């Protein structure tokens, strides 16, 4: 399907979003900018999960653990080696790729809820693993981010990770924001390219009809495994960003609990599974809700945020099961067919999720 969005809206909307994204760190204080960075990390991790769950139909409830693995890998590399900081995120992605392939191996035999259970085990196991290897990870206390550098002994809290802007006039938080934004944009562009390619079509074919996929010549097992790895690698990039860029000089195991895995899934579904931009929208909704609206709620609702989020999720599933972006596309398709006076694009829900076709 070719997108029904008119070109002027496409370019105009894109330019507007770009201006807003660039202006944001100049309009808000550092603590808010740090939250924006965290939302971007979640968006990237959710984009990785979307590739696996949305496009390829393999449900993972364990991506919080891969997100965490990426964070710890980057943090440990920064703290203990002299690998350049941005390169640690790349290495973290590679490590997560390997872990993703390993977790994905059972997916060759099992599908659906059973696979979800295996990944759930991974999510539950992760904090215990962090505790187990506490000499490396700092255990429950978290891992302080310190950089080995000249005149400053390795692993001493006096030398925290710093992101000095190479340009004048940018505060540290603003510089970190732009680094995070750049990585996020690259990640989303790569995913967008991937899903509208030969590989992307294979992913959807495997999700919707693996026998048809196989007899068309798609190596289903291999593709599923690599998708798991790639999905994990992207989640790992999100984690690496979180560890190094969000302004918190400490990586804590509490950032990667089972709940985080579920929030990632929620971000995918709320934003729109199998749409490129859906996970970003989902992460934005999640971020606005937990960081902006949540704290404003009256005191007696303080612990009720997950409940409210849950209720909203149920309402959304009833009103817009394809997520925000999916719903938007549906409305757009309807309007387009009304304008052209042709028969309406029939979409009788045979697809579990509408696929993005930019």
């Amino acid at each position, binding site marked *: 399907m070719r997108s029904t969005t008119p070109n002027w809206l496409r370019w105009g909307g894109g330019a507007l979003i770009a201006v807003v994204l660039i202006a944001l760190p100049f309009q808000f204080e550092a603590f808010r900018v740090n939250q924006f960075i965290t939302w971007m990390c979640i968006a990237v991790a959710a984009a990785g999960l979307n590739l696996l769950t949305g496009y390829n139909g393999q449900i993972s409830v364990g991506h919080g653990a891969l997100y965490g693995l990426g964070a710890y890998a980057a943090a440990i590399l920064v703290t203990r080696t002299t690998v350049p900081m941005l390169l640690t995120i790349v290495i973290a992605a590679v490590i997560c790729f390997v872990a993703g392939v390993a977790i994905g191996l059972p997916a060759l035999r099992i599908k659906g809820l059973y696979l979800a259970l295996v990944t759930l085990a991974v999510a539950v196991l992760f904090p215990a693993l962090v505790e187990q290897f506490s000499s490396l990870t700092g255990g429950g206390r978290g891992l302080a981010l310190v950089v080995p550098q000249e005149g400053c002994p390795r692993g001493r809290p006096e030398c925290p990770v710093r992101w000095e802007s190479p340009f004048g006039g940018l505060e540290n938080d603003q510089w970190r924001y732009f680094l995070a934004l750049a990585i996020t944009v690259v990640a989303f562009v790569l995913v967008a390219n991937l899903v509208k390619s030969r590989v992307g*079509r294979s992913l959807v074919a495997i999700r919707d*009809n693996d026998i048809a996929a196989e007899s068309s010549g798609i190596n289903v097992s291999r593709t599923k495994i690599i998708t798991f790895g790639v999905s994990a690698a992207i989640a790992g990039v999100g984690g690496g960003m979180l560890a190094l860029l969000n302004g918190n000089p400490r990586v804590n195991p509490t950032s990667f609990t089972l709940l985080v895995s579920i929030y990632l899934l929620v971000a995918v579904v709320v934003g729109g599974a199998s749409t490129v931009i859906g996970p970003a929208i989902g992460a934005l909704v999640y971020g606005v809700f937990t960081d902006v609206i949540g704290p404003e709620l009256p005191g007696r609702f303080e612990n009720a945020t997950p409940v409210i989020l849950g209720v909203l999720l149920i309402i959304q599933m009833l009103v817009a099961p394809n997520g925000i972006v999916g719903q938007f596309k549906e409305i757009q398709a309807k309007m387009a067919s009304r304008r052209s006076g042709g028969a309406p694009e029939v979409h009788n829900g045979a*697809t579990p999720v509408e696929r993005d076709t930019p």
Partner: protein
Amino acid sequence: MPLLDIQSVGVHFGGVSALDGLSFSIDEGQLAALIGPNGAGKTTLFNVVSRIYDADEGSVTFDGEDLLALPAYRIAELGVGRTFQNLALVPGLSVLENVIVGAHSRSTGGFWTAALRFPQLAEERRLVARAMEVLERLGLADLAQRPCAGLPFGTLKRIEFARALAGEPRLLMLDEPASGLTHGEVDELGDLIRQIRTEFDLTVLLVEHHMSMVMALSEKIVVMDLGSKIAEGSPAEIRDNPAVISAYLGAST
């Protein structure tokens, strides 16, 4: 040497034999039909050839290559295309994309080149052009950008046909292509199959219940009942074969 050679193939599900010592062969360029009552094992044979089912005994060779030694995803690459009796399309993709998926084994590109996009651009253009050609040939070009979901059964069957052709097969296996069609449409489909076979230089194996179409099209007919072959020959030979009449009508011989 025959193009497709089935030798003593057996498939057993528990105590039930879906196929039992089935042997026949098709020569290159032949248009052959596989007929028999429901449950005779026709679709099972298709699934054995496309490696969806494992054969418990026997051998299947395609152009001398042992198919049973290959994984299912390698079959298309060798030049065996097929359609499915109950449709196996991808509802999440447009009609065009479904047809392009059919050309998977005729294209290249992995995760890296796809993510970087530019190495793939020429390939993508080629795939789209090729798929559009096939769609046009089958009169489906107008539907290219539509989702598959919601299209009529007969049209979906035709899209499957297009997808199989996109894989540039040498052998095309059609599983009940005429089911769900009206009488007029069945005749049209018959003509189409005949033309396509010449244009694309195909060998065709057809499973079909519309006897008029089978008789008019086929050069060779293999009749199956209860997992075994009961007759084989030209349409004229089959029409008068007492075993065939008995299997179809239940008459005593």
